[in-house]
């Protein structure tokens, strides 16, 4: 039972991170119907921005809670900028082209960020400074709950609530939903779709950047290819919950995180990477639009 609880705690904190990344995928998919393959690499950039920021500002030497939040904020803002630049430079010129073309461009951007990252940051892994000292909140012989998963969970929850507030209660959020519903009609109603799409990318990339910092807290080894697999799995999480659906992304991320740690803990860690996809295949075979996705009627 205790071991189960331990796995559950780890699973939920991983799930929260998957959910943060998946939110970016699902929002971009909502407005553009584009699988933004570069999103996982923005997540990697977030970790690196945090790494360099915390070293330059000497936060790394004497970590404080304030320093952690400053790093988090910096990484989020920097990633938001990167996301907007990517959208403007690589995706916007292709707005009217077939979706497949944009998809390949996204793969190209992803390759560019990975290879550019290897060139600029170096291919060898870096060690992320421990910005938050690990303390044990609860300890028994079989169950250790440290503060890190709790911080991850708390930060992601706050960010998700913030996101929900932005999407549901602000003007720009309303515009985002309008663009996701029907881009042309939204632009006829006076919504500046280009700005809304840029804002969506900024929002999603900021969440991915935060995810990068949170992962680096628990797994401090960061390298330019670290975004590849988590990015893909977060996309799987988004599809699992029904792509384009914001609560679906959170649900999918949580399911994925928990089931992955359970499989790694109880069966074998080598099957860890397969469970995400196996789950995906099974769920999509039963419900082809994901758990919370709505069936879009076919237009004839």
């Amino acid at each position, binding site marked *: 039972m205790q071991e189960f609880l331990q796995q559950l705690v780890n699973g939920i904190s991983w799930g929260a991170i998957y959910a943060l990344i998946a939110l970016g995928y699902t929002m971009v998919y909502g407005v553009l119907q584009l699988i933004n393959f570069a999103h996982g690499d923005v997540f990697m950039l977030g970790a690196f921005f945090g790494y360099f920021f915390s070293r330059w500002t000497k936060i790394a030497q004497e970590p404080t809670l304030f320093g952690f939040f400053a790093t988090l904020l910096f990484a989020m803002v920097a990633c938001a900028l990167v996301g907007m630049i990517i959208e403007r430079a690589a995706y916007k010129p292709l707005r009217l082209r077939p979706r497949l073309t944009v998809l390949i461009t996204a793969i190209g951007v992803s*390759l560019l960020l990975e290879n550019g990252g290897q060139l600029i940051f170096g291919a060898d892994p870096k060690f992320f400074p421990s910005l938050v000292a690990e303390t044990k909140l609860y300890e028994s012989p079989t169950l250790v709950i440290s503060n890190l998963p709790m911080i991850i969970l708390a930060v992601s929850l706050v960010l998700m609530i913030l996101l929900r507030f932005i999407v549901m209660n602000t003007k720009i959020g309303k515009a985002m939903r309008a663009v996701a519903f029907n881009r042309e009609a939204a632009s006829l109603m006076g919504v500046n779709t280009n700005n809304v799409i840029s804002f969506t990318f900024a929002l999603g990339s900021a969440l991915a950047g935060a995810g990068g910092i949170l992962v680096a807290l628990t797994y401090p080894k960061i390298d330019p290819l670290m975004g590849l697999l988590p990015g893909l799995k977060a996309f799987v999480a988004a599809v699992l919950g029904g792509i384009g659906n914001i609560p679906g992304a959170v649900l999918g991320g949580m399911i994925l995180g928990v089931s992955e740690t359970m499989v790694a803990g109880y069966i074998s860690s080598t099957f860890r*990477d397969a469970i995400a996809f196996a789950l995906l295949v099974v769920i*999509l075979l039963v419900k082809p639009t994901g758990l919370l996705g709505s069936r879009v009627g076919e237009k004839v």
Partner: protein
Amino acid sequence: MKRLLVFAAIFVLFLLANRFLPQWIDSYYLHLTILSCINIILAVSLNLINGFTGQFSLGHAGFMAVGGYTSAAFTYYLGQKLTSALGFLPIMLTKNLIFLSALFSGGLSAAILGLLVGIPSLRLRGDYLAIVTLGMGEIVRVLILNIDAIGGARGFSGIPAYTNVFWVISLTALTIAVVTSLVNSSHGRAFLSVREDEIAAEAMGINTTYYKVTAFVIGAFFAGMAGCLFGHYLQLLHTNSFTFVKSFEIIIMIIVGGLGSISGSIIAAILLTFLPELLRYLGPIKDWRMVIYSLALILIMLTRPQGLFGSREPNWRRFWPFRKPSPSI
């Protein structure tokens, strides 16, 4: 009779190529040529699924892996027994017979997986299908990683080096010939109609289910053969060669060449195999080669989104010197 003669001539030509090509060109370029032939097989077969039938598959590396590992297990575990059983035949013939059956076993096993992947394609469309095929590829990779008899995480080494220039060129030619004639047949029209408009195709009495699954099975079959060539060429298979990144590479080839253009796929496969290698000659900025490669990809997509050839086939006959004069009307 004439056709038979042409086949015989091609066969002899390929045998000659097998004999003399390794002497004429540098081994490094021979290596690249063999790799680009394997990539041509992969790209052309994927083009049948993605370009002609319009099903977005991202799992081609998975088919390749299954074919490669099955055929490698075939030659590794059964090769010895078959060699002694067929002892009365000349050794050259035995070797090539075993390789031929290995090619078929690889192709067949991949085709069976293609059938299994083709079935969900009946329910899923577009991006959902893409991610399921990608997932299938990754599941296959993780499963292989956990089977110890075929190397597991160490990689499968000790595969006999059966691949030679003859097999590589013949299979490339075979793939191109089969896919081209398939696409130009009435079946090909059915594939195209599924791509253009599934509902209209169904209304015209085309069994869209059948054609979608067929495209997957045939595409997978050739990918499996490519995997067999790959394994028996490198003599080592490792699951790291078959990640989704490999699938992306093949997708990039067919998109750069133009979806639904076979000549486009061929040229893009050659170009994209050689490009990262040729960029090594850039001298001081050679560290930038992968960055240049990805930038080139983005730029091609921005400036020529339909791919180099679009979906057209260039009229190669224009360059054929021995054509009959066109009848004047």
